């Protein structure tokens, strides 16, 4: 058999083949028994009908196992309906014991075939039994009633019922087993998926933990810096610069932790947070920030480079503040950071760090005595 019936799965093929093999061994055995019986009783017409049935059984078995399951089943259903009707017609009509074969044919087709084919099998059975009564009533043929009971009746009926029961149970059992296997597979798969989901959750927790650890470590470095700063007044500017850089990284990790985006930072939120922290740290006056409210996510490493740059610019401007410092941040196409509100008495140099970071970001830094402008395109960074 090449393909399973519609409601079975490929894994069932072996079991279905086994059921059909056994079923089609029991059926010829029954037909042979009946054939010999009628031959002995001298009912040659009946014996001939059974011989045809026997031959057909072998043919159907070959077709079934050859892969033409649907056609073979339909053919078998039609043929055995006709055969049963013929046997009953030649026998005791509606009172013939062969009528137990009708429910078996219907049961077999109901399990293995679909609705339409089941309707076909039922219709044929109904036509068959109606024919038996109608033909008798209108005396279309002569029925020779043989009402005497003999022990062969028991064997024939028992055999038919056992075949029917075996086929029905086995075919249903295959479906039920497939159902059970699928259920068990679902349950295993669910457990595995739950496990994986748990691991995903764990990974997210670890990512959070990394950010938390990074923040703690940076706090520790800040403490170390402030501890050393107390004993090295001549390096105050260097320590201050170092503090700003650590502050940028710390802020980046705090935002990454709170927003639960492990790698991306929203540039406006980052800028605002940085400025706030700078204000707090330096106890400087409030810095006004104007943004275009266009959210822009950038990679955390780029954001950190950007953060170091702008904090350096703010720090430079802060020393020459002329009233309130003002930041304009535009993020629509590229990132444009404009700082004003100060007046410098001397030309401000770029500085080696700023130069390096600007190059890394592939940005442009313009410094005048009253305004700093820093632009870069995140994609290019």
């Amino acid at each position, binding site marked *: 058999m090449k393909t399973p019936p519609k409601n079975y799965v490929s894994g069932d093929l072996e079991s279905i083949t086994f059921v059909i093999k056994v079923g089609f061994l029991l059926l010829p055995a029954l037909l042979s028994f009946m054939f010999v019986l009628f031959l002995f009783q001298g009912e040659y017409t009946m014996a001939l009908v059974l011989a045809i049935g026997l031959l057909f059984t072998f043919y159907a078995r070959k077709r079934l196992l050859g892969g033409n399951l649907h056609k073979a089943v339909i053919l078998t259903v039609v043929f055995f309906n006709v055969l049963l009707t013929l046997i009953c017609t030649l026998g005791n009509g*509606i009172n013939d014991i062969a009528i137990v074969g009708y*429910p078996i044919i219907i049961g077999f087709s109901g399990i293995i075939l679909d609705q339409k084919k*089941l309707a076909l099998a039922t219709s044929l059975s109904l036509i068959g039994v109606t024919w038996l009564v109608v033909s008798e009533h209108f005396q279309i043929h002569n029925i020779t009633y043989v009402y005497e*009971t003999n022990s062969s009746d028991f064997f024939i009926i028992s055999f038919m019922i056992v075949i029917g029961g075996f086929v029905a149970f086995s075919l249903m059992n295959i479906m039920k087993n497939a159902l059970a296997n*699928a259920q068990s597979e679902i349950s295993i798969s669910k457990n595995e998926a739950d496990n*994986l989901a748990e691991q995903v959750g764990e*990974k997210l927790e*670890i990512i959070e933990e990394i950010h938390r650890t990074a923040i703690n*470590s940076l706090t520790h*470095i800040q403490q170390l810096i402030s501890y050393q700063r107390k004993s090295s007044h001549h390096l105050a500017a260097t320590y201050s610069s170092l503090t700003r850089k650590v502050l940028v990284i710390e802020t980046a990790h705090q935002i990454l932790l709170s927003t639960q985006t492990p790698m991306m930072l929203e540039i406006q939120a980052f800028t605002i947070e940085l400025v706030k922290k700078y204000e707090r740290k330096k106890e400087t006056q409030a810095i006004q920030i104007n943004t275009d409210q266009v959210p822009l996510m950038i990679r955390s490493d780029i954001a950190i480079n950007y953060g170091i740059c702008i904090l350096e610019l703010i720090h430079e401007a802060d020393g020459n503040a002329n009233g309130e410092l003002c930041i304009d941040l535009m993020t629509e196409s590229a990132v444009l950071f404009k700082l004003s509100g100060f007046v410098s008495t001397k030309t401000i140099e770029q500085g080696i760090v700023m130069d390096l970071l600007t190059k890394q970001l592939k940005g442009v830094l313009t410094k005048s005595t009253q305004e700093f402008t820093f632009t870069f395109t995140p994609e290019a960074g």
Partner: protein
Amino acid sequence: MKLDWQAYKISDHYAKKEVANQLQLFLYVIPVIAIILALVNLILGLTEIALATLMVPFFCGISLVALKKGYINTSMILIVSIMMVSTSIICILGSRIHEVGIIIFPVIVIFSGLVMNFRGVVITTSVVLFCIALIVFGDLWSFFPESEIKESKWLELAVVISVIIIHTFITYSFSRITRRNLSKIQDELKNQRRYKNEIAENLSEKTELLRLVHHRVKNNLLLVNSLIELESYGQPQVKNELKEITESIHAIARAHDPLYHTDDYKQVAIRPYLEKLINNFIQKNQVKSLNIEIEDCLIFHAKALHLGIIIQRILSCMQNLPLMELSVRLRKSSNQIHLDIYNQSENEFALKDTPSIKLLINESEGKVEIDERKVAISLLLFSEIVG
């Protein structure tokens, strides 16, 4: 207590509710047909057969009550039993094995094949075969009195047609329940597999992300060191003063190096990590001899990082000491790590920053014993140790 006969227990894979609904439907239909047939038999003067047929609606009623109370197995046993008994009686009272009622026996067996387990089917089939044997051999050996039955072929046709139609519906309905469930469960299985694959993909993404996050943290910290390096370029004194800070940053950055992490990035292999830190230290300091005995074990990242910072601070206190004979020993007990750092040379080993080191160790739920004269430090650390 529910009367469940194990032999008749419906297969667990079967949808019991759906089976119960179908059974209920048939328990309404079968009595109606039985009453009609009983009436017809009564009209035809077949009183005994009519009475036997009337047993069916009565027991169907009891079966229905059992079903409504949730005793599905009891209900099924009742219906199967009454069908077998009434069919046998009707056949015995009628034309015996040639009675059309015989058609009900295969229906009963096929019904059991659809809804019952193996034992249930075997028991049902055996009882049916016994009933047939009773009818055949009882007739053969004249156990039953002769019956003179008025035959009505049209009534027999009605009986056979009713049985065939009911049987078709029974077969179709019950096999459909399993088919539908199978189809549903196969869809569910497909979805479940897809979901699992998606989660597995998500997990591998998260693992990669984890590696990247560690990598970024390390890079960000090393960036600070690089910028310090740049700013202090050509100023060796400044560089020297910032050395402790840069080395602390270095120790923290190294703890984030995915190179020292386990595959799940939860734990750090402590031996290569600490060896790297110590080697880094001896490259920049005068060390006469070095003895490192670090046990191979894994500890959680946060703790490893803390340990790295502590060792870095202790080593920083030792820098610039001439001709050190350094010995670092780390071993793991059940839930603690013991770290000993010795300077076996005669040079004075005074920790200039003892309070901050003590503070760091206290933060790590550890203990410290610092003996300045003998230059031996013993650290008892950590409650979370794996590996």
